[in-house]
């Protein structure tokens, strides 16, 4: 049985379509393709076609546990899917406010395949049910706020007039839960004052009642328009409940010279575009589940046409809880740090190990160190391949997406021999990319960065900064490591640096000759402070911690993506939408390691 089934008895035509749906599952993946690949999932191979819009999906697939903010976002995705819609949860518990999972399974490829098999049965038998209930969650509701058409910074809960110009404020909808998204002077939201927003679904109105109609102020407007729209009144407008626009000076009637509305008057307060034309700008969210962008990243672009006029980026992964408050056992500290970042768990594990070993004054053997190098470089390869797959998706380059993802899966747990056997595949991938037409013109000059101390890892090395924690590591220098760099600093350079690093990592694994994941050294009851740098696939991460009697009491973590996140605004400004997204994508941000 499916919670999100359609209402109706399963008979006749419905039986046929239910069978068809069971065969043709379309999935929307949460948190995203990058995480799925990193977890070793190949969803398309398991028989579900992935889609970009929730409207086209029949299954919401959640891979792994996610933060409350991401759950809210996932619930919105779920609410926007067309029924019958199912929820497949892999390796996670309750995901409130999402409804209970229709199928749960473990987070692995066999688990996925098994879950999908169960889903097919569930669809064939339960795509239609006589009784279904609405899906509802607090953030799906609407709060109406009032804003001045000429001064958007004026936002308040009650109708009235603008304190700046005296114009009548217009109602506008906002999500019930993003109360603090408008930090303005005139802004005084109280949860208690929104009681109106909850008397929402009056299903008596027929199937099209709208949940923002509880306002006397604009009641007549929205009602009449909704119904006109339903009646197919040709060329008639469905309602925006803007009330009636009393535009003060813009009110124009039938009176002589004043009749013409002066475009200069009307547009003088609008934002100016780069070519001097006054335009309206809109804020459009991209993410946290946007195909081609790192999952968990919420990028909000202010769009002037299809040009980015401004942007804000933040992560919704809420990975901020390092042990500040309570002391942690070394092993659980290591586990916490490596679980934090599903895209590069080993790098963080080694970071924690090294910092603790330094604090405790433990020397590790060369064998252990080389084993770590091998494992870290393998992770770099899988991470770069994962980025290539995501980047391929972003560029609409299907071949790259599939090829890189397939290689990533092969590298995940490969041993030295298997990795050496995969070397020709990497070579042919690189060669193919070098020959691909349009790839250069798509990337050259996009997202150009200048030298800057905030840059880390491949992003820094693409600008010509020789910033690599491995350069100072004796184990690496003994293996003949030399940092790679390019100097054009654009998306193409970042692509090239990462491709070069694939080769380099292969060579390093070859030189190290071993891949071993040693258990963390036993630090006993050591006390002391220590720090470590590890070159994660995204750049150097820095951890400083103090031990007290064998427990980790304080820890400070600095990660590359945290630095890179601040670049998004300058990279996207005045770029076309496609270029802006590509520029953000080329940074290889990991929202999981961003600490805000």
């Amino acid at each position, binding site marked *: 049985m499916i919670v999100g089934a359609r209402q109706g008895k399963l008979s006749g035509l419905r039986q046929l379509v239910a069978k068809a749906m069971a065969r043709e599952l379309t999935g929307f993946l949460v948190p995203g393709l990058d995480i799925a690949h990193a977890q070793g999932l190949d969803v398309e191979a398991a028989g579900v076609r992935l889609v970009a819009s929730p409207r086209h999906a029949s299954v919401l697939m959640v891979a792994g546990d996610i933060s409350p903010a991401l759950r809210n976002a996932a619930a919105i995705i779920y609410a926007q899917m067309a029924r019958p819609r199912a929820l497949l949860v892999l390796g996670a518990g309750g995901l409130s406010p999402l409804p209970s999972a229709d199928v749960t399974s473990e987070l692995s490829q066999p688990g996925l395949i098994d879950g999908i098999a169960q889903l097919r049965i569930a669809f064939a038998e339960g795509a239609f049910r006589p009784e279904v209930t609405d899906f509802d969650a607090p953030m799906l509701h609407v709060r109406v706020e009032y804003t001045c058409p000429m001064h958007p910074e004026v936002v308040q809960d009650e109708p009235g007039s603008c304190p700046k110009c005296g114009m009548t404020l217009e109602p506008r909808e906002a999500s019930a839960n993003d109360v603090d998204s408008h930090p303005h002077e005139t802004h005084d939201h109280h949860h208690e004052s929104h009681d109106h927003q909850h008397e929402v679904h009056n299903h008596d109105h027929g199937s099209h009642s709208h949940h923002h109609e509880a306002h006397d102020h604009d009641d007549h407007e929205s009602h009449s328009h909704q119904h006109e729209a339903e009646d197919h009144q*040709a*060329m*008639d*407008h469905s309602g*925006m409940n*803007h009330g*009636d*626009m009393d*535009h003060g000076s*813009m009110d*124009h*009637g*039938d009176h002589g010279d004043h*009749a*013409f*509305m002066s*475009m200069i008057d*009307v*547009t003088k307060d609008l934002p*100016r575009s*780069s*070519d*001097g*034309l006054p*335009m309206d700008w809109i804020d459009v969210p991209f993410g946290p589940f946007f195909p081609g962008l790192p999952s968990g990243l919420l990028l909000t672009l202010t769009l002037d046409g299809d040009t980015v006029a401004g942007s804000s980026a933040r992560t919704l992964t809420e990975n901020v809880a390092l042990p500040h408050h309570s002391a942690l056992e070394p092993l659980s500290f290591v586990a916490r740090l490596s679980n934090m970042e599903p895209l590069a768990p080993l790098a963080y594990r080694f970071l924690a190990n090294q910092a603790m070993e330094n604090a405790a004054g433990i020397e590790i053997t060369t064998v252990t160190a080389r084993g770590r190098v091998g494992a870290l470089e393998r992770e770099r390869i899988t991470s770069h391949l994962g980025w290539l797959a995501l980047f391929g998706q972003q560029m609409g380059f299907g071949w790259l997406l599939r090829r890189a993802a397939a290689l990533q899966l092969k590298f995940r747990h490969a041993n030295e021999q298997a990795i050496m056997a995969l070397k020709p595949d990497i070579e042919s991938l690189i060669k193919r990319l070098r020959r691909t037409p349009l790839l250069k013109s798509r990337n050259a000059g996009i997202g150009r960065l200048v030298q800057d101390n905030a840059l880390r890892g491949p992003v820094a090395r693409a600008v010509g900064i020789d910033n690599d924690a491995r350069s100072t590591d004796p184990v690496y220098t003994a293996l003949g490591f030399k940092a790679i760099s390019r100097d054009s600093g654009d998306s193409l350079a970042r692509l090239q640096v990462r491709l070069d690093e694939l080769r380099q990592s292969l060579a390093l694994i070859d030189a190290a000759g071993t891949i071993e994941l040693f258990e963390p050294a036993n630090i006993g009851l050591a006390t002391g402070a220590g720090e470590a740098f590890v070159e994660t696939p995204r750049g150097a991460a820095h951890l400083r911690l103090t031990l007290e009697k064998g427990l980790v009491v304080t820890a400070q973590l600095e990660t590359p993506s945290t630095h890179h996140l601040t670049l998004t605004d300058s990279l996207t400004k005045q770029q076309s939408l496609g270029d802006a997204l590509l520029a953000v994508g080329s940074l290889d941000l990991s929202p999981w390691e961003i600490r805000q």
Partner: protein
Amino acid sequence: MAMISAQTFFISFFGLAAVWFGVVVFRTHSMMRSALALLFSQTAIGAMFIGMQAEFLGVLQIMMMATEMSIMAIFMVMFMMDPGGLGKMDMTHQKRLSVITGLVAFVAIVAVAVFTDWGPLAGSVPDSAQQTEDLGLELMGRSMLIFETAGLTLLTAMIAATAVAVEPIKRNRD
């Protein structure tokens, strides 16, 4: 006879459709609807031409107006306030003057249509392939000068458009 009446029926049908879409242009608040209503009004006129067996002219009209009006749509959405018509702003002004002008123009056009001597009714129409060919020969022959003048007119239009398009950018740069 039955054929003629079907022809008349469709010509009038598309004529009325053209008029109706034309009315919608001014009756809607949305710039986009306004633009596309004009588009379909022109399409209906194209269909009328086809109904009158002027196939080349009709198809050309249907093709060209679709692109031209779509481009008009983007300019309307770029430059008009509230292009979605969400505020239900009244887009008309100087109503009395426009109504009078409109009525006078209508009467004048009807008068021209009714009182002009259009000559005898054509007995038959050349087939449409022949029409295209005749048109081509006309362009290459008697109307060559007109044709080349059209080229110059288009050049003027392009230069004017260029000037208009680059002006705000230049002004902004200063």
